[in-house]
Protein backbone atom coordinates (compact mmCIF):
# COMPACT_ATOMS: atom_id res chain seq x y z
CA UNK A 1 0.00 0.00 0.00
CA UNK A 2 1.41 3.42 -0.96
CA UNK A 3 1.95 6.15 1.60
CA UNK A 4 -0.85 8.32 0.22
CA UNK A 5 -3.32 5.44 0.30
CA UNK A 6 -2.33 4.44 3.83
CA UNK A 7 -2.85 7.99 5.12
CA UNK A 8 -5.93 9.05 3.17
CA UNK A 9 -8.35 8.13 5.97
CA UNK A 10 -6.38 10.40 8.28
CA UNK A 11 -5.74 13.52 6.23
CA UNK A 12 -9.42 14.12 5.46
CA UNK A 13 -10.98 17.58 5.23
CA UNK A 14 -12.56 17.52 8.70
CA UNK A 15 -9.26 16.98 10.54
CA UNK A 16 -7.47 19.57 8.39
CA UNK A 17 -10.24 22.08 9.13
CA UNK A 18 -10.21 21.32 12.86
CA UNK A 19 -6.45 21.94 13.09
CA UNK A 20 -6.60 25.14 11.00
CA UNK A 21 -9.61 26.54 12.87
CA UNK A 22 -8.04 25.72 16.26
CA UNK A 23 -4.87 27.63 15.36
CA UNK A 24 -6.77 30.58 13.87
CA UNK A 25 -8.98 30.95 16.93
CA UNK A 26 -6.09 30.32 19.34
CA UNK A 27 -7.82 27.54 21.26
CA UNK A 28 -5.97 26.14 24.25
CA UNK A 29 -5.57 22.67 22.73
CA UNK A 30 -4.53 23.83 19.24
CA UNK A 31 -0.80 22.93 19.50
CA UNK A 32 -1.58 19.47 20.91
CA UNK A 33 -4.19 18.89 18.21
CA UNK A 34 -1.62 19.82 15.56
CA UNK A 35 1.08 17.70 17.20
CA UNK A 36 -1.23 14.69 17.56
CA UNK A 37 -2.44 15.03 13.96
CA UNK A 38 1.22 14.90 12.88
CA UNK A 39 2.67 12.21 15.16
CA UNK A 40 -0.27 9.81 15.64
CA UNK A 41 -0.30 8.54 12.01
CA UNK A 42 3.49 8.03 12.17
CA UNK A 43 3.04 5.81 15.22
CA UNK A 44 0.33 3.91 13.33
CA UNK A 45 2.57 3.45 10.29
CA UNK A 46 5.29 1.95 12.49
CA UNK A 47 3.01 -0.43 14.40
CA UNK A 48 3.86 -4.08 13.71
CA UNK A 49 1.73 -5.69 11.01
CA UNK A 50 -0.81 -7.97 12.66
CA UNK A 51 -2.81 -10.93 11.44
CA UNK A 52 -6.25 -9.71 10.36
CA UNK A 53 -9.08 -10.37 12.80
CA UNK A 54 -11.49 -13.14 11.88
CA UNK A 55 -14.41 -11.76 9.85
CA UNK A 56 -17.40 -11.22 12.12
CA UNK A 57 -20.63 -9.26 11.92
CA UNK A 58 -19.78 -7.30 15.10
CA UNK A 59 -16.34 -6.12 13.95
CA UNK A 60 -17.84 -5.25 10.55
CA UNK A 61 -20.61 -3.24 12.23
CA UNK A 62 -18.12 -1.43 14.49
CA UNK A 63 -15.88 -0.51 11.54
CA UNK A 64 -18.92 0.70 9.62
CA UNK A 65 -19.97 2.88 12.58
CA UNK A 66 -16.50 4.45 12.66
CA UNK A 67 -16.61 5.00 8.89
CA UNK A 68 -20.09 6.56 9.15
CA UNK A 69 -19.03 8.97 11.91
CA UNK A 70 -15.89 10.09 10.07
CA UNK A 71 -17.76 10.46 6.77
CA UNK A 72 -20.39 12.49 8.63
CA UNK A 73 -17.64 14.83 9.86
CA UNK A 74 -16.29 15.29 6.31
CA UNK A 75 -19.78 15.73 4.82
CA UNK A 76 -20.68 18.28 7.52
CA UNK A 77 -17.51 20.22 6.71
CA UNK A 78 -18.35 20.26 2.98
CA UNK A 79 -21.95 21.26 3.76
CA UNK A 80 -20.72 24.10 6.00
CA UNK A 81 -18.43 25.25 3.18
CA UNK A 82 -21.38 25.30 0.79
CA UNK A 83 -23.48 27.28 3.28
CA UNK A 84 -20.73 29.88 3.70
CA UNK A 85 -20.50 30.23 -0.07
CA UNK A 86 -24.24 30.76 -0.39
CA UNK A 87 -25.12 27.31 -1.77
CA UNK A 88 -27.55 24.89 -0.16
CA UNK A 89 -26.49 22.41 2.48
CA UNK A 90 -28.49 19.66 0.75
CA UNK A 91 -26.67 20.27 -2.55
CA UNK A 92 -23.29 19.71 -0.89
CA UNK A 93 -24.54 16.58 0.88
CA UNK A 94 -25.91 15.10 -2.38
CA UNK A 95 -22.60 15.83 -4.16
CA UNK A 96 -20.60 14.24 -1.31
CA UNK A 97 -22.90 11.20 -1.23
CA UNK A 98 -22.57 10.75 -5.00
CA UNK A 99 -18.76 10.94 -4.79
CA UNK A 100 -18.60 8.49 -1.87
CA UNK A 101 -20.87 6.01 -3.65
CA UNK A 102 -18.92 6.44 -6.91
CA UNK A 103 -15.78 5.40 -5.03
CA UNK A 104 -17.39 1.98 -4.61
CA UNK A 105 -18.32 1.61 -8.26
CA UNK A 106 -15.07 2.51 -10.00
CA UNK A 107 -12.72 -0.47 -10.51
CA UNK A 108 -9.40 -0.01 -8.68
CA UNK A 109 -10.91 2.95 -6.86
CA UNK A 110 -8.50 2.69 -3.92
CA UNK A 111 -5.49 3.57 -6.06
CA UNK A 112 -7.29 6.38 -7.89
CA UNK A 113 -8.63 7.86 -4.66
CA UNK A 114 -5.10 8.26 -3.31
CA UNK A 115 -4.05 10.03 -6.54
CA UNK A 116 -7.09 12.32 -6.33
CA UNK A 117 -6.28 13.08 -2.68
CA UNK A 118 -2.69 13.93 -3.62
CA UNK A 119 -3.87 16.32 -6.33
CA UNK A 120 -6.26 17.91 -3.81
CA UNK A 121 -3.38 18.42 -1.42
CA UNK A 122 -1.33 20.10 -4.17
CA UNK A 123 -4.28 22.39 -5.00
CA UNK A 124 -4.56 23.44 -1.36
CA UNK A 125 -0.80 24.07 -1.21
CA UNK A 126 -1.18 26.47 -4.16
CA UNK A 127 -3.71 28.47 -2.16
CA UNK A 128 -1.33 28.46 0.80
CA UNK A 129 1.48 29.82 -1.38
CA UNK A 130 -0.88 32.57 -2.58
CA UNK A 131 -1.80 33.35 1.04
CA UNK A 132 1.90 33.63 1.90
CA UNK A 133 2.34 36.06 -1.01
CA UNK A 134 -0.68 38.10 0.13
CA UNK A 135 0.49 38.35 3.72
CA UNK A 136 4.04 38.87 2.48
CA UNK A 137 5.87 37.23 5.37
CA UNK A 138 6.93 33.74 6.49
CA UNK A 139 4.54 31.85 8.79
CA UNK A 140 6.68 32.47 11.89
CA UNK A 141 6.74 36.22 11.18
CA UNK A 142 2.97 36.10 10.66
CA UNK A 143 2.64 34.33 14.03
CA UNK A 144 4.72 37.08 15.65
CA UNK A 145 2.53 39.76 14.06
CA UNK A 146 -0.65 37.97 15.16
CA UNK A 147 0.71 37.68 18.71
CA UNK A 148 1.54 41.41 18.76
CA UNK A 149 -2.03 42.59 18.01
CA UNK A 150 -3.25 44.88 20.80
CA UNK A 151 -6.79 43.62 20.14
CA UNK A 152 -8.41 41.11 17.78
CA UNK A 153 -10.62 43.32 15.60
CA UNK A 154 -12.60 43.18 12.36
CA UNK A 155 -10.51 44.27 9.37
CA UNK A 156 -11.88 46.74 6.83
CA UNK A 157 -11.88 44.06 4.09
CA UNK A 158 -13.55 41.36 6.18
CA UNK A 159 -16.69 39.87 4.54
CA UNK A 160 -18.41 40.36 7.94
CA UNK A 161 -17.83 44.11 7.49
CA UNK A 162 -18.33 44.57 3.73
CA UNK A 163 -21.48 42.58 2.81
CA UNK A 164 -22.22 40.73 6.00
CA UNK A 165 -21.75 37.01 6.53
CA UNK A 166 -24.04 34.11 7.37
CA UNK A 167 -23.95 32.19 10.66
CA UNK A 168 -23.69 28.48 9.87
CA UNK A 169 -24.85 27.63 13.40
CA UNK A 170 -26.78 29.51 16.03
CA UNK A 171 -24.46 31.67 18.10
CA UNK A 172 -24.35 33.54 21.38
CA UNK A 173 -21.96 36.46 20.98
CA UNK A 174 -20.65 38.34 24.02
CA UNK A 175 -19.57 41.95 23.40
CA UNK A 176 -16.76 43.70 25.28
CA UNK A 177 -17.41 47.12 23.74
CA UNK A 178 -20.23 49.05 22.13
CA UNK A 179 -21.09 47.68 18.68
CA UNK A 180 -23.73 48.33 16.04
CA UNK A 181 -24.75 45.09 14.35
CA UNK A 182 -26.75 45.19 11.12
CA UNK A 183 -29.13 42.41 10.09
CA UNK A 184 -28.46 41.98 6.36
CA UNK A 185 -31.53 39.78 5.98
CA UNK A 186 -34.84 39.85 7.83
CA UNK A 187 -34.86 37.99 11.13
CA UNK A 188 -35.11 38.04 14.89
CA UNK A 189 -32.16 38.76 17.13
CA UNK A 190 -32.23 38.33 20.89
CA UNK A 191 -30.22 40.81 22.92
CA UNK A 192 -29.49 40.09 26.57
CA UNK A 193 -28.70 43.48 28.08
CA UNK A 194 -26.54 43.72 31.16
CA UNK A 195 -28.07 46.26 33.49
CA UNK A 196 -25.82 46.00 36.53
CA UNK A 197 -26.53 42.59 38.05
CA UNK A 198 -29.89 42.46 36.25
CA UNK A 199 -30.33 40.84 32.82
CA UNK A 200 -32.92 42.18 30.43
CA UNK A 201 -33.88 40.04 27.44
CA UNK A 202 -35.24 41.79 24.34
CA UNK A 203 -36.21 40.16 21.04
CA UNK A 204 -35.74 42.43 18.03
CA UNK A 205 -37.62 41.67 14.82
CA UNK A 206 -35.48 43.30 12.19
CA UNK A 207 -36.05 44.03 8.53
CA UNK A 208 -33.13 43.81 6.11
CA UNK A 209 -30.74 46.67 6.88
CA UNK A 210 -32.01 47.31 10.41
CA UNK A 211 -29.43 47.54 13.17
CA UNK A 212 -29.21 46.82 16.89
CA UNK A 213 -26.84 48.63 19.21
CA UNK A 214 -25.05 46.60 21.82
CA UNK A 215 -23.28 47.91 24.89
CA UNK A 216 -20.29 46.39 26.66
CA UNK A 217 -21.27 43.13 28.47
CA UNK A 218 -24.39 42.69 26.28
CA UNK A 219 -24.98 39.34 24.60
CA UNK A 220 -26.46 38.75 21.15
CA UNK A 221 -28.23 35.47 20.38
CA UNK A 222 -28.68 34.80 16.65
CA UNK A 223 -30.17 31.80 14.89
CA UNK A 224 -28.37 29.72 12.29
CA UNK A 225 -28.68 31.33 8.87
CA UNK A 226 -28.79 34.89 10.24
CA UNK A 227 -26.72 37.20 8.09
CA UNK A 228 -25.03 39.93 10.08
CA UNK A 229 -22.74 42.87 9.43
CA UNK A 230 -20.28 44.24 11.98
CA UNK A 231 -18.28 47.44 12.31
CA UNK A 232 -14.66 47.59 11.17
CA UNK A 233 -12.05 48.15 13.85
CA UNK A 234 -14.26 46.76 16.63
CA UNK A 235 -13.31 43.74 18.72
CA UNK A 236 -14.47 40.37 17.38
CA UNK A 237 -17.01 38.99 19.88
CA UNK A 238 -15.90 35.67 21.34
CA UNK A 239 -12.34 35.94 20.00
CA UNK A 240 -9.21 36.20 22.13
CA UNK A 241 -8.95 39.59 23.81
CA UNK A 242 -5.56 40.35 22.26
CA UNK A 243 -2.75 38.82 20.23
CA UNK A 244 -0.96 37.98 23.44
CA UNK A 245 -4.00 36.10 24.77
CA UNK A 246 -4.23 34.30 21.38
CA UNK A 247 -0.57 33.27 21.53
CA UNK A 248 -0.49 32.15 25.16
CA UNK A 249 -3.83 30.32 25.38
CA UNK A 250 -2.07 27.02 24.74
CA UNK A 251 0.09 27.39 27.83
CA UNK A 252 -3.05 27.42 29.98
CA UNK A 253 -4.62 24.29 28.45
CA UNK A 254 -6.24 21.91 30.97
CA UNK A 255 -3.90 18.91 31.35
CA UNK A 256 -6.72 16.32 31.28
CA UNK A 257 -8.09 17.80 28.05
CA UNK A 258 -4.64 17.73 26.44
CA UNK A 259 -3.98 14.11 27.46
CA UNK A 260 -7.48 12.99 26.42
CA UNK A 261 -7.14 14.59 23.00
CA UNK A 262 -3.69 13.11 22.40
CA UNK A 263 -4.80 9.60 23.45
CA UNK A 264 -7.95 9.77 21.30
CA UNK A 265 -6.03 10.84 18.20
CA UNK A 266 -3.17 8.41 18.82
CA UNK A 267 -5.43 5.35 19.19
CA UNK A 268 -7.76 6.60 16.47
CA UNK A 269 -4.81 6.70 14.07
CA UNK A 270 -3.73 3.19 15.11
CA UNK A 271 -7.21 1.99 14.12
CA UNK A 272 -7.41 3.88 10.83
CA UNK A 273 -3.87 3.93 9.41
CA UNK A 274 -2.47 0.52 8.49
CA UNK A 275 1.08 -0.52 9.33
CA UNK A 276 3.48 0.88 6.75
CA UNK A 277 4.86 -1.65 4.31
CA UNK A 278 7.51 -1.51 1.62
CA UNK A 279 5.82 1.21 -0.41
CA UNK A 280 4.85 3.53 2.43
CA UNK A 281 8.27 5.17 2.82
CA UNK A 282 6.87 8.43 1.40
CA UNK A 283 4.06 8.55 3.98
CA UNK A 284 6.02 10.49 6.66
CA UNK A 285 6.71 13.23 4.10
CA UNK A 286 2.96 13.51 3.45
CA UNK A 287 2.31 13.78 7.19
CA UNK A 288 4.98 16.47 7.46
CA UNK A 289 3.47 18.51 4.61
CA UNK A 290 0.04 18.13 6.23
CA UNK A 291 1.35 19.38 9.60
CA UNK A 292 3.39 22.29 8.22
CA UNK A 293 0.62 23.22 5.76
CA UNK A 294 -2.21 23.30 8.31
CA UNK A 295 -0.03 25.20 10.80
CA UNK A 296 0.89 27.87 8.24
CA UNK A 297 -2.71 28.03 6.97
CA UNK A 298 -4.03 28.60 10.49
CA UNK A 299 -1.53 31.37 11.23
CA UNK A 300 -2.18 33.18 7.92
CA UNK A 301 -5.94 32.92 8.54
CA UNK A 302 -5.41 34.44 12.00
CA UNK A 303 -3.66 37.42 10.37
CA UNK A 304 -6.02 38.03 7.43
CA UNK A 305 -9.32 36.99 9.01
CA UNK A 306 -9.18 36.84 12.82
CA UNK A 307 -12.99 36.66 12.91
CA UNK A 308 -12.93 33.26 11.22
CA UNK A 309 -14.62 31.43 14.08
CA UNK A 310 -17.68 33.67 14.10
CA UNK A 311 -19.81 31.66 11.66
CA UNK A 312 -19.60 28.60 13.92
CA UNK A 313 -17.80 26.36 11.43
CA UNK A 314 -14.14 25.42 10.94
CA UNK A 315 -14.76 25.77 7.21
CA UNK A 316 -14.58 29.54 7.60
CA UNK A 317 -10.89 29.45 8.57
CA UNK A 318 -10.17 27.17 5.59
CA UNK A 319 -11.82 29.62 3.21
CA UNK A 320 -10.31 32.73 4.83
CA UNK A 321 -6.97 32.96 2.95
CA UNK A 322 -8.66 32.49 -0.44
CA UNK A 323 -11.41 35.00 0.26
CA UNK A 324 -8.93 37.54 1.63
CA UNK A 325 -6.65 37.35 -1.42
CA UNK A 326 -5.80 40.60 -3.19
CA UNK A 327 -8.46 41.14 -5.89
CA UNK A 328 -5.83 42.27 -8.42
CA UNK A 329 -3.59 39.25 -7.88
CA UNK A 330 -2.84 36.50 -10.40
CA UNK A 331 -5.73 34.46 -9.05
CA UNK A 332 -8.88 36.23 -7.92
CA UNK A 333 -10.47 35.43 -4.54
CA UNK A 334 -13.26 33.66 -6.43
CA UNK A 335 -10.83 31.44 -8.35
CA UNK A 336 -8.87 30.63 -5.19
CA UNK A 337 -12.09 29.76 -3.37
CA UNK A 338 -12.94 27.31 -6.17
CA UNK A 339 -9.47 25.76 -5.82
CA UNK A 340 -10.06 25.33 -2.06
CA UNK A 341 -13.45 23.69 -2.66
CA UNK A 342 -11.99 21.34 -5.30
CA UNK A 343 -9.10 20.51 -2.95
CA UNK A 344 -11.49 19.70 -0.11
CA UNK A 345 -13.63 17.53 -2.38
CA UNK A 346 -10.50 15.66 -3.50
CA UNK A 347 -9.44 15.06 0.11
CA UNK A 348 -12.98 13.83 0.80
CA UNK A 349 -12.85 11.35 -2.11
CA UNK A 350 -9.49 10.05 -0.86
CA UNK A 351 -10.79 9.71 2.71
CA UNK A 352 -13.95 7.95 1.52
CA UNK A 353 -11.87 5.51 -0.53
CA UNK A 354 -9.61 4.74 2.41
CA UNK A 355 -12.54 4.29 4.82
CA UNK A 356 -14.13 1.93 2.31
CA UNK A 357 -10.85 -0.03 2.29
CA UNK A 358 -10.99 -0.30 6.10
CA UNK A 359 -14.58 -1.62 5.96
CA UNK A 360 -13.67 -4.09 3.18
CA UNK A 361 -10.60 -5.34 5.09
CA UNK A 362 -12.86 -6.28 8.00
CA UNK A 363 -14.02 -9.00 5.65
CA UNK A 364 -17.14 -11.05 5.39
CA UNK A 365 -19.60 -11.17 2.52
CA UNK A 366 -21.73 -8.30 3.75
CA UNK A 367 -19.20 -5.47 3.76
CA UNK A 368 -20.65 -3.74 0.64
CA UNK A 369 -24.01 -3.39 2.42
CA UNK A 370 -22.26 -2.13 5.56
CA UNK A 371 -20.35 0.48 3.50
CA UNK A 372 -23.49 1.60 1.69
CA UNK A 373 -25.34 1.97 5.01
CA UNK A 374 -22.45 4.01 6.45
CA UNK A 375 -22.43 6.37 3.45
CA UNK A 376 -26.19 6.94 3.50
CA UNK A 377 -26.25 7.41 7.29
CA UNK A 378 -23.41 9.94 7.04
CA UNK A 379 -25.24 11.83 4.29
CA UNK A 380 -28.49 12.02 6.25
CA UNK A 381 -26.64 13.12 9.39
CA UNK A 382 -24.76 15.75 7.37
CA UNK A 383 -28.06 17.46 6.61
CA UNK A 384 -28.43 18.34 10.30
CA UNK A 385 -26.86 21.77 10.58
CA UNK A 386 -26.74 22.05 14.38
CA UNK A 387 -23.89 19.52 14.69
CA UNK A 388 -20.44 20.92 13.90
CA UNK A 389 -17.90 18.67 12.11
CA UNK A 390 -15.73 18.28 15.22
CA UNK A 391 -18.44 16.36 17.12
CA UNK A 392 -18.68 13.37 14.73
CA UNK A 393 -14.91 13.56 14.05
CA UNK A 394 -14.08 13.26 17.77
CA UNK A 395 -16.73 10.56 18.18
CA UNK A 396 -15.44 8.61 15.16
CA UNK A 397 -11.84 8.74 16.37
CA UNK A 398 -12.98 7.88 19.91
CA UNK A 399 -15.00 4.84 18.81
CA UNK A 400 -12.12 3.77 16.56
CA UNK A 401 -9.77 4.07 19.54
CA UNK A 402 -12.01 2.18 21.97
CA UNK A 403 -13.62 -0.43 19.72
CA UNK A 404 -10.91 -1.15 17.14
CA UNK A 405 -7.45 -0.05 18.36
CA UNK A 406 -7.63 -1.00 22.06
CA UNK A 407 -8.68 -4.65 21.47
CA UNK A 408 -6.02 -4.93 18.75
CA UNK A 409 -3.31 -3.64 21.10
CA UNK A 410 -4.46 -6.22 23.67
CA UNK A 411 -3.70 -8.95 21.13
CA UNK A 412 -7.28 -9.57 20.02
CA UNK A 413 -6.59 -10.08 16.30
CA UNK A 414 -6.76 -13.77 15.45
CA UNK A 415 -7.68 -14.69 19.06
CA UNK A 416 -10.95 -16.19 20.26
CA UNK A 417 -12.85 -15.95 23.52
CA UNK A 418 -15.13 -18.96 23.48
CA UNK A 419 -17.09 -18.88 20.22
CA UNK A 420 -16.45 -15.13 19.73
CA UNK A 421 -13.48 -13.38 18.11
CA UNK A 422 -11.65 -11.42 20.82
CA UNK A 423 -11.77 -8.32 18.56
CA UNK A 424 -15.57 -8.46 18.59
CA UNK A 425 -15.79 -8.89 22.38
CA UNK A 426 -13.32 -6.06 23.07
CA UNK A 427 -14.97 -3.88 20.46
CA UNK A 428 -18.42 -4.36 21.97
CA UNK A 429 -17.14 -3.51 25.45
CA UNK A 430 -15.27 -0.48 24.09
CA UNK A 431 -18.25 0.93 22.22
CA UNK A 432 -20.62 0.19 25.13
CA UNK A 433 -18.40 2.05 27.63
CA UNK A 434 -17.93 4.87 25.11
CA UNK A 435 -21.70 5.23 24.64
CA UNK A 436 -22.38 5.01 28.39
CA UNK A 437 -19.80 7.68 29.28
CA UNK A 438 -20.99 9.94 26.45
CA UNK A 439 -24.63 9.56 27.52
CA UNK A 440 -24.10 9.89 31.26
CA UNK A 441 -21.19 12.35 31.06
CA UNK A 442 -23.26 15.32 32.23
CA UNK A 443 -23.59 13.71 35.67
CA UNK A 444 -19.88 13.05 36.11
CA UNK A 445 -18.05 14.91 38.91
CA UNK A 446 -15.81 17.82 37.91
CA UNK A 447 -12.46 15.92 37.94
CA UNK A 448 -13.89 13.45 35.41
CA UNK A 449 -15.49 16.10 33.20
CA UNK A 450 -12.91 15.47 30.46
CA UNK A 451 -14.47 12.04 29.89
CA UNK A 452 -17.68 13.76 28.77
CA UNK A 453 -15.89 15.29 25.78
CA UNK A 454 -13.40 12.49 25.17
CA UNK A 455 -15.03 9.21 26.36
CA UNK A 456 -12.29 7.14 24.68
CA UNK A 457 -10.11 7.94 27.68
CA UNK A 458 -12.29 5.53 29.72
CA UNK A 459 -13.55 3.24 26.94
CA UNK A 460 -10.19 2.29 25.40
CA UNK A 461 -8.63 1.05 28.69
CA UNK A 462 -11.86 -0.85 29.46
CA UNK A 463 -11.74 -2.65 26.10
CA UNK A 464 -8.01 -3.37 26.50
CA UNK A 465 -8.42 -4.81 30.00
CA UNK A 466 -11.43 -6.97 29.09
CA UNK A 467 -9.61 -8.56 26.14
CA UNK A 468 -6.48 -9.20 28.23
CA UNK A 469 -8.47 -10.75 31.12
CA UNK A 470 -10.84 -12.84 29.02
CA UNK A 471 -8.05 -14.11 26.78
CA UNK A 472 -6.09 -15.25 29.81
CA UNK A 473 -9.13 -17.00 31.29
CA UNK A 474 -10.00 -18.59 27.93
CA UNK A 475 -6.40 -19.83 27.67
CA UNK A 476 -6.50 -21.32 31.18
CA UNK A 477 -9.74 -23.21 30.62
CA UNK A 478 -8.55 -24.83 27.39
Amino acid at each position, binding site marked *: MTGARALAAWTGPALAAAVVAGITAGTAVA*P*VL*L*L*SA*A*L*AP*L*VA*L*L*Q*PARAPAAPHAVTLALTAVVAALLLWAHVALLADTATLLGAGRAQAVVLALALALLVGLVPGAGRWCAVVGGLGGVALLLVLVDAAATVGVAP*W*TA*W*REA*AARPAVVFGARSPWVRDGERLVRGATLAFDEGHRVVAVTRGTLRVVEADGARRVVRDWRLAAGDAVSLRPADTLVAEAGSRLRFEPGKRVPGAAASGSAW*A*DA*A*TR*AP*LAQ*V*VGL*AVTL*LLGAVALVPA*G*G*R*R*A*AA*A*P*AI*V*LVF*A*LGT*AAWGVYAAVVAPESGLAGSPAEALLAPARSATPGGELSPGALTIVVVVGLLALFVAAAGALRDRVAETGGRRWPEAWMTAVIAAGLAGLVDVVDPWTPLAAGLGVAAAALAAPRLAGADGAWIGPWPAAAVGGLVGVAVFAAVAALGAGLPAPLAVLRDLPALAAAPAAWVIVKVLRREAGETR
Partner: protein
Amino acid sequence: MSADRGRRIAVVVLVLLLSLPPLALLLPGSPATVRVAGVGVLWWYAALAAPLLGAALATVILRRASR
Protein backbone atom coordinates in the same frame (compact mmCIF):
# COMPACT_ATOMS: atom_id res chain seq x y z
CA MET B 1 19.22 -4.21 15.35
CA SER B 2 16.23 -6.08 13.91
CA ALA B 3 13.60 -4.20 11.93
CA ASP B 4 10.93 -5.02 14.54
CA ARG B 5 13.09 -3.69 17.37
CA GLY B 6 13.78 -0.52 15.39
CA ARG B 7 10.06 -0.01 14.90
CA ARG B 8 9.35 -0.49 18.59
CA ILE B 9 12.02 2.01 19.60
CA ALA B 10 10.74 4.52 17.03
CA VAL B 11 7.19 4.16 18.37
CA VAL B 12 8.44 4.84 21.92
CA VAL B 13 10.34 7.92 20.70
CA LEU B 14 7.25 9.22 18.84
CA VAL B 15 5.03 8.72 21.89
CA LEU B 16 7.63 10.56 23.98
CA LEU B 17 7.59 13.44 21.48
CA LEU B 18 3.79 13.52 21.82
CA SER B 19 4.01 13.48 25.62
CA LEU B 20 6.36 16.45 25.98
CA PRO B 21 3.77 19.29 25.79
CA PRO B 22 1.56 17.79 28.56
CA LEU B 23 4.70 17.30 30.66
CA ALA B 24 5.74 20.90 29.98
CA LEU B 25 2.38 22.07 31.32
CA LEU B 26 3.21 20.40 34.64
CA LEU B 27 6.62 22.02 35.06
CA PRO B 28 6.96 25.05 37.34
CA GLY B 29 7.83 28.41 35.79
CA SER B 30 5.64 27.89 32.68
CA PRO B 31 8.46 26.96 30.25
CA ALA B 32 5.88 26.75 27.44
CA THR B 33 5.47 30.55 27.56
CA VAL B 34 9.11 31.16 26.58
CA ARG B 35 9.47 32.74 23.14
CA VAL B 36 12.26 32.03 20.68
CA ALA B 37 12.63 34.58 17.85
CA GLY B 38 9.25 35.97 18.89
CA VAL B 39 7.37 32.68 18.56
CA GLY B 40 6.24 30.56 21.53
CA VAL B 41 8.52 27.60 22.13
CA LEU B 42 5.45 25.31 22.34
CA TRP B 43 4.45 26.40 18.82
CA TRP B 44 7.99 25.90 17.45
CA TYR B 45 7.87 22.42 18.92
CA ALA B 46 4.33 21.44 17.82
CA ALA B 47 4.39 23.00 14.36
CA LEU B 48 7.96 22.38 13.27
CA ALA B 49 10.44 20.50 15.47
CA ALA B 50 8.37 17.48 16.52
CA PRO B 51 6.76 16.84 13.09
CA LEU B 52 10.22 17.17 11.43
CA LEU B 53 11.87 14.81 13.92
CA GLY B 54 8.99 12.36 13.77
CA ALA B 55 8.84 12.30 9.98
CA ALA B 56 12.62 11.87 9.70
CA LEU B 57 12.61 9.00 12.18
CA ALA B 58 9.65 7.25 10.51
CA THR B 59 11.24 7.66 7.07
CA VAL B 60 14.48 6.05 8.25
CA ILE B 61 12.65 3.11 9.82
CA LEU B 62 10.35 2.54 6.83
CA ARG B 63 13.26 2.75 4.37
CA ARG B 64 15.24 0.21 6.42
CA ALA B 65 12.22 -2.10 6.36
CA SER B 66 11.87 -1.81 2.59
CA ARG B 67 15.46 -2.96 1.90
